[in-house]
């Protein structure tokens, strides 16, 4: 009995004091979450840009070069935020991130944020063309040239068997965040294969490197541009030709190759208008696959930090980036 008043009192007290503390800290009125900066951002008076980095090295290369130039040439401070692609779009629309420099195509998100809500605007081409496909190592394709056509894949299913793929051949897929139709493709093309998900790009790369070291055959979902091609040369397997009609099918019915995508930049709408020099620079940022691969390789194979790799590339290629800074 005696307990009841204590309980109510502590509870009321606690609720009231926490509410009061919250209001004291934040001030009354509306709090707009889209106007929040990171607590680790530099103090006021310094201009800050926040860029989103995706998990693959190509994306790291874009961001590292942009960061270095924004900092050294334009006097900005750059914050990086690492997230998966779909959450990154979400963050971009809220202004948590100012720009995505390499997008591989997200039609749902584009429709929602660019066309309907207008919180994100297009930032133009990155200059790099992306392509997803099925790849086999060059050393294997050289021995068996006919493996590079999907129609002959079944003949080699036996050689690609692993404990994970059961009695079938293993088609290795990577991170769950990547765009893939592979499960549908295997079914619709009636192939004697099983899609085994490596679960992350890091795991997939490690496995490919391991196979290459032993000169073992493998078949993997992979994409260009990618630095790993320099280390493990791979040849693409021809799939049924890509057509618009096929791409428009239900994801479960797709039975053709992946498209070739000119990679896109996207900017937060507000930042695009008021971002000044930084926004102009990011819109003009445009380089080639070779350039991106050069930086990526320094990061991934030579184990330089992205900053060091960017610095080296910037030192060697003033002709390329000076154009991005011009008014």
């Amino acid at each position, binding site marked *: 009995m005696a307990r009841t008043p204590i309980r109510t009192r502590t509870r009321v007290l606690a609720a009231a004091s926490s509410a009061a503390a919250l209001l004291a800290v934040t001030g009354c009125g509306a709090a707009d979450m889209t106007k929040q900066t990171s607590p680790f951002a530099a103090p006021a008076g310094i201009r800050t840009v926040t860029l989103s980095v995706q998990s693959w090295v190509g994306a790291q290369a874009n961001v590292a070069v942009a960061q270095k130039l924004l900092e050294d040439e334009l006097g900005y401070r750059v914050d990086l935020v690492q997230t998966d692609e779909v959450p990154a779009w979400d963050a971009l629309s809220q202004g948590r991130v100012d720009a995505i420099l390499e997008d591989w195509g997200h039609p749902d998100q584009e429709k929602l944020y660019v066309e309907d809500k207008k919180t994100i605007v297009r930032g133009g081409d990155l200059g790099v063309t992306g392509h997803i496909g099925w790849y086999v190592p060059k050393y294997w394709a050289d021995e068996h040239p006919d493996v590079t056509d999907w129609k002959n894949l079944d003949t080699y299913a036996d050689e690609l068997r692993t*404990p994970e793929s059961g009695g079938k051949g293993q088609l290795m897929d990577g991170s769950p965040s990547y765009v893939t139709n592979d499960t549908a493709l295997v079914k619709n093309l009636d192939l004697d294969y099983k899609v085994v998900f490596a679960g992350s790009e890091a795991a997939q*790369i490690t496995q490919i490197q391991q196979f290459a070291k032993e000169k073992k055959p493998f078949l993997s979902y992979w994409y260009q541009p990618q630095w790993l091609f320099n280390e493990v040369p791979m040849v693409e397997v021809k799939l049924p030709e890509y057509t618009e009609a096929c791409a428009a099918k239900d994801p479960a019915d797709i039975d053709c190759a992946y498209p070739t995508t000119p990679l896109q930049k996207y900017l937060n709408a507000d930042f695009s208008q008021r971002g000044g020099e930084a926004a102009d620079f990011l819109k003009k940022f445009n380089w080639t696959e070779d350039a991106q691969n050069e930086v990526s390789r320094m990061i991934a194979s030579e184990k330089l930090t992205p900053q060091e790799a960017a610095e080296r590339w910037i030192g060697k290629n003033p002709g390329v980036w000076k154009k991005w800074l011009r008014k």
Partner: protein
Amino acid sequence: MATAQAATPAVSGPPGRRQVLALLRRPSLAKLLVLALIAAVAVPVVQARWGGAAWPGALTVDLTAPLGEVNDWIVANRDSHPLFLYFFGHVSDAVVLSVRGVYLLLLALGWAGVTAVAAVVAWRAAGPRLALTAAVSFLVCGLLGMWVQTMQTLALMVVAVLASVALGVLLGLAAGLSDRTYRALRPVLDTMQVLPAFAYLLPVALVFGIGVPGAVLATVVYAAPPMARLTALGLRGADPGVMEAVTSLGATGRQRLLTARLPLARKELLLGLNQTIMMALSMAVIASVIGAGGLGDRVYQALSSVDVGAALAAGIPIVLLAVVLDRTTEAAGRRIGTEPTGPAALRGARGWGLAAVLVAVVAVVGRFTGGRIWPEGAIVAIAGPVNTAKEWMVDHIYTGVPVVGGTADWAAHFTSWILNPLRSGLQGLPWWSVLLIVAALAWTIGTWRTALTAVLAMAAIGVLGVWEPSMDTLGQVVAAVAVTLVLGFGIAIGAARSERFERLLRPLLDVFQTLPQFVYLIPVVALFGIGRAPAAAAAIVYALPAVIRITTQGLRGVDPAAMECARSLGATSGQQLRQVQLPLARPALLLAVNQGVVLVLAVVIIGALVGSGALGYLVVLGLAQGQLATGLVAGAAIVCLGLMLDRVTQPTTRTAPKES
């Protein structure tokens, strides 16, 4: 106890009947018989209606549409709805402001100042040895080139731990003072701890956006339960004699709470703080997936370029922070109630005053001589040598090692001889028989309540529509737990016998318990390839330390008189172990089994990143593709699996009051 009852000669009647009745007196057999009876009636009906191995489609509920609507509503209203403007917005602002405040303070102190503060606090709370450990640990963080990241993580941790403690104490007070709240809160706390953090990162990120606020709140959800539990435990355990005395002195309710109950619960409160800090640190890396920054972010980024060395360089500071914070709070807890020692000038307020002056001097001197940020020249790059060492290891033990075979061969055998049969077995069993087995296991070691909970948890998995992946995950968990127990018990028996071995083992166990799992993902793939085998390896590495520790302690704790007695009777050391030590340490062994299950289950999601597939993959997929339903449903299924496994491995008796 069961045998004692069966032996009671109270049964009369013809011999045959007597035997049956005697059998029935064995509680576990009776329970099984009842279960068999129920099955005999129900199974034919169920089989006729919903036959087949997998859970029947007619008995599932699809949550995709409603959860999808919630998702869309949040996205559409996030920038305008009052709920976000006047509530979540303020919460978010408060988090950002406080993290920023702590971060700026840490930067203002400079590296010398922060190191001095850590050393002095450790010295005041835990003595000179820990002061040295703390100082060296912070300097190592700087030497590894991770100073700024360490400060970011520390700022995040300080705010998250304070918030967790505040929330935990509030919940604990409510639960400690009222029985009804206590009962209502228990399942909530259970769920908060068992639900994989990956599953609620998405909803949190959806509401708060990516970045620090979401990360801090996700950490609070995970880290507050131990504080709440231990606060409640401390309050409920207050000595009734003392309480009686205080009441008779005419203290009001609040006075009783503040002057008697809370001070009496100091030990539990400090243990709660310790646990909360450890849990918060283990979230540091996971929260980086939604942009928390700091050390976790470095670990995560290093992974994308498959750079184990860089991941380790960022992982070591996390381990060091964990060790320093753990030892300091633990030692502080031990010191409670003991007399202060040392010269009078260092005691109480005067001691703290002196400490503050010391810190101020060091910080000012540090600012003038070295600057605020760690000097770039004083960084030791360990990434290169670590990567070389990893390459060497992989090159030499991956395959073709004489006699034992390489790691790749082990992985292949483990997959095809253990994991594949287990998976096809579990997936091939009719769904109702799985429920029956679960019921039988849970009922024989517990009460009908535990059995009911376990069966309902399994049924919930079916209703959620993730039966097949759950059976896959279950198979992997069972296999990994089995290996963990075999290895763990073996090592623990060795450690219990040799003090030296145990001392050598201790730092190794510390490292594996606190090292972020992301760091060893790449090495396990390099050694075992992709698939379920490396995922099992990662889970074993993570769960092994706890199993070894608990078992060693249990074996050590066996009554020395019993051991002496066995020895004097001429038992060999093997006999001593089998017939005295192991049976007497049974409670500890059971706890080890339970912890093994819980910890292996905690790595299911991480395992998905190296190809374990099943439920873990669905959770990661949900987060990566922004599919609220996929991630949450799979997360809930993991909770259900955890609940079921807990009930079938943790013996409960009807008479023992739960958790008090």
